[in-house]
């Protein structure tokens, strides 16, 4: 191996390097929506014992592509009340997908993810600008997000309830016990608004 500028960086942590290869590979799969691509990537032969391709399907690729797109959109510009956002178009396109039930499952997972409350709250607030799924599906999302530990997620749930409306969602709000005073006022205000 040559010295200096032509030498390759060597990592002493092969497991970390392998994880990085998997991340890049999965991103490429998501961009191409083609799992057969994995057969040609050189990384697979470098780390045959480490790279896990089992279970990574086209559906996983779609979810990751949707997630990458939304995250990039929110990183560029935060979602702001009163202002349209490019992430709405990403969601609209996803909802026009042929496999709606799978997309709805992806959106449910992205919008009620306790590990990433800030991102989930943005996804849910953006989703609330559309009318995705059925009334029952929307009610389920609001109920799940209202049960989150994170106040930002619960706030996003109430905002979704406010946009989507309906008697079932109103009942979910009425039954919710909110500890944070400003959010409790919002819950009550929206529930009252939905009475009319």
């Amino acid at each position, binding site marked *: 191996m040559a010295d200096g500028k032509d030498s390759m960086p060597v990592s002493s942590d092969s497991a970390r390097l392998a994880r990085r290869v998997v991340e890049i590979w999965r991103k490429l799969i998501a961009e191409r929506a083609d799992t057969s691509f994995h057969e040609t990537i050189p990384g697979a032969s470098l780390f045959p014992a480490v790279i896990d391709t089992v279970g990574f399907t086209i559906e996983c690729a779609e979810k990751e592509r949707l997630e990458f797109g939304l995250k990039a959109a929110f990183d560029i510009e935060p979602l702001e009340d009163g202002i349209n956002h490019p992430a709405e178009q990403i969601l609209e396109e996803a909802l026009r997908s042929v496999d709606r039930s799978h997309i709805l499952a992806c959106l449910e997972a992205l919008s009620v993810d306790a590990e990433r409350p800030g991102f989930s709250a943005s996804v849910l607030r953006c989703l609330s600008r559309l009318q995705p799924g059925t009334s029952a599906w929307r009610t389920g999302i609001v109920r799940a997000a209202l049960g989150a530990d994170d106040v930002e997620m619960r706030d996003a749930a109430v*905002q979704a309830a406010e946009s989507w409306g309906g008697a079932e969602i109103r009942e979910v709000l009425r039954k919710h016990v909110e500890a944070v005073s400003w959010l409790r006022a919002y819950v009550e205000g929206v529930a009252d608004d939905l009475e009319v």
Partner: protein
Amino acid sequence: MADGEISADAITADLRTQGDTLSFWRSASEANGDLEEAVLAIASAGQRLDKIEVVYLAVEDLRADGHTLKDSAGQTPVADLVERHVDICQLDYVRLGKVAQRVVEAIRLEHYRRLTKKRVKELLLTAIEQERIHPDDLADSLRKDLAN
């Protein structure tokens, strides 16, 4: 975050400056009616109908912090509110931090209002009825939301 800490995201998302300036609207008092005039100025300039929250700060506190306040024509279709706009200018890292501290204090003292989407809609429709706003001056998407 611990008490007293202010998240960096809150600064970059909610206190975004432009030209080292933050945009505010004057309110005659803390009374709901006066604060709702500021809400009207902001909401009518938006692209869509949403809930809105406003925090109010005392002008004397901002002056005590050494801020430069400059009246300027506001971007709102409500003609009689255009002159209510004021900029906090010449912001830098330290001065923006002081504004953030005042906002945190205001929230602690409950010097804020959150208006539901329904209330914002009522304000806008009333202003249209009173001919304070011409519907053609609203964004198409906002006009559509008001019609629904």
